[in-house]
């Protein structure tokens, strides 16, 4: 993300966890760089960059390895997936997948991001967190990012017959798509 207007960049206080967790984050990021090397593309640390927690950009191919390593390794223990979402940056690479992680033992947060081009598939994190299932469905529904290997990639908030992905920046703000027939129950989803 480029800062659009440098006059707006004032050092704010929202990196208020830096005194408490700054050292921990530094050791964790150097451990990640040591283990994954080139696959960690870029890190952005508060308070140098306007963010509340460090942002780690990871290559798409190794995001699952990084996530499962960070979930289980004793220096990280980011075992709780707080949030999984995406942003539309309007320029290539267009999308950024955002993983907000929380450690229930160390009580610290961190953010992982994956850059994706338009039409590119992301790997699914459902094998690591089964709870990522619906979040990934929402990202697919809202941004049109497909997840390879996802068990049940359907629309979740919008109707299954809906055309378009609403949270893309080029999606029109006004318009109608009217469905008069109800969405029927799908017996295939109830197979064992």
């Amino acid at each position, binding site marked *: *993300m480029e*800062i*659009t*207007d440098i006059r*707006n*960049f*004032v050092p*704010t*206080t*929202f990196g*208020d966890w830096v005194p408490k967790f700054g050292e921990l984050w530094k050791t964790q990021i150097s451990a990640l760089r040591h283990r994954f090397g080139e696959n960690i593309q870029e890190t952005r640390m508060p308070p140098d*960059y*306007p*963010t*509340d*927690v460090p*942002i780690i950009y990871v290559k798409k191919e190794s995001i699952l390895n990084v996530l499962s390593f960070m979930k289980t390794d004793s220096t990280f223990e980011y*075992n*709780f*997936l*707080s*949030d999984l*979402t995406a*942003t*539309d940056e309007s320029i290539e690479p267009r999308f950024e997948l*955002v993983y*907000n992680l*929380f450690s*229930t033992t160390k*009580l610290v*947060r961190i*953010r992982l991001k994956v850059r994706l081009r338009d039409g590119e598939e992301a790997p699914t994190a459902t094998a690591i*967190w*089964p*709870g990522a*299932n*619906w*979040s990934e469905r929402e990202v697919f529904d*809202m941004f049109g990012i497909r997840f390879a290997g996802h068990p049940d990639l359907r629309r*979740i*908030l*919008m*109707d299954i017959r809906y055309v378009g992905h*609403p*949270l893309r*920046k080029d*999606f029109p*703000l006004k318009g109608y798509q009217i469905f008069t027939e109800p*969405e029927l*129950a*799908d*017996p295939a*989803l*109830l*197979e*064992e």
Partner: protein
Amino acid sequence: MPMTDTIHKSALDRDPDDLWEDSRAIVNIGPTHPAMHGAFRLVAKLNGETIEKSYGEFGYTHRAKEKMGENRTYHQYIVYTDRMNYVSAMINNTVYAMAVERLMGIEVPERTIWIRMICSEMSRVIDHLVCVGINAVDIGAFSYFLYGFHEREEAYTLIERLCGARLTTSFTRIGGLMADAPEGWEKDVKAWVKRTRKTIDEMDRLLTMNRIWQKRTVGVGVITKEQCIEYGFSGPNARGSGIDIDLRRDQPCMFYKDVEFDVPYATEGDIFSRYLVRIEEIRQSLNIITQCADRIKPGPIWCEDKRVRIPDKDVVYNTMEGLIYHFKFFMTGFEVPAGEAYTQFEAANGEFGFYIVSKGSSKAHRMRVRGPSFWHFQALPLMVRGLKIADMVATFGSINVIAGEIDR
């Protein structure tokens, strides 16, 4: 041979397992079913009355709140926040205001923070009263629900005195509050706390040791500690399964460091555990409210920062500059510096967070809302597997899924 004999004979010849095989049915519950609180739909494959497999659906009240966040100014978005979890609207207002203030680096005055804390805890009490009350109605204890709802109405009256609205409050502003608390409000809050404490004890005596209630709830709708972590559970539902995490204590914001409260948790992970956690949390919230009401002092409610401060009415009506500023404030809004932050708070249902990405304009680049119910509802098919339909209704009520928060 008479007809009845044939039927008897064929029934006896049959393998009982085959008989069950034939009786499998797919039942659609919702979205306008009274047992589904809010517009939810659960499609279940039943074997007799036992749920073999099910899946949940939602999105019937989707109002594109995240898209609106990108197309409304930060000030205009306040009214959207209290339609998320409409049972505890004040918490959403507070979290949203905190999120934007954090991005802008604004410090709000002490009095504002105390009022926000009182309102948040009152909303938490309201939310828990609704949850346990409705859960009890689903199981058949109607009078219990009325006890809780009386206190809920009293709490709404107190909120109405603050902002004129009972449900959709829109009370907070970025950097302040809509209005100061009226005179004597703290005293009334303390009187309400006293009454509610008594009511909670009464409700506790009425239901907790009731044998029917226990038979319906103990060991039903179980979710284990590990599953809770895997499925992103937070709040009272996670604490019902033995996860000792409360963001008010563990990542404190506002003045939660300065007040004393306990974090209750239970270990069984069934409906009864969640019920006990909620009842105890109401008591702790009441303690927090008393401490806040004791420490609140008269003072300003608006921050000093000129960027977000809504101009006073006499300045607007009497000076040209004030009028221009007023117009600019409401039409174009204030600019938030570029940056991004995920601000979270322990809402009544769990971790409620705003992930705001700003690119320096007066509208957010991305306004993501993390509602706890989204994650809780996802695990419902797991929790109700092998239960009866009636137990599914009880389980659904106990995780307190709010439609507005999921659908956004």
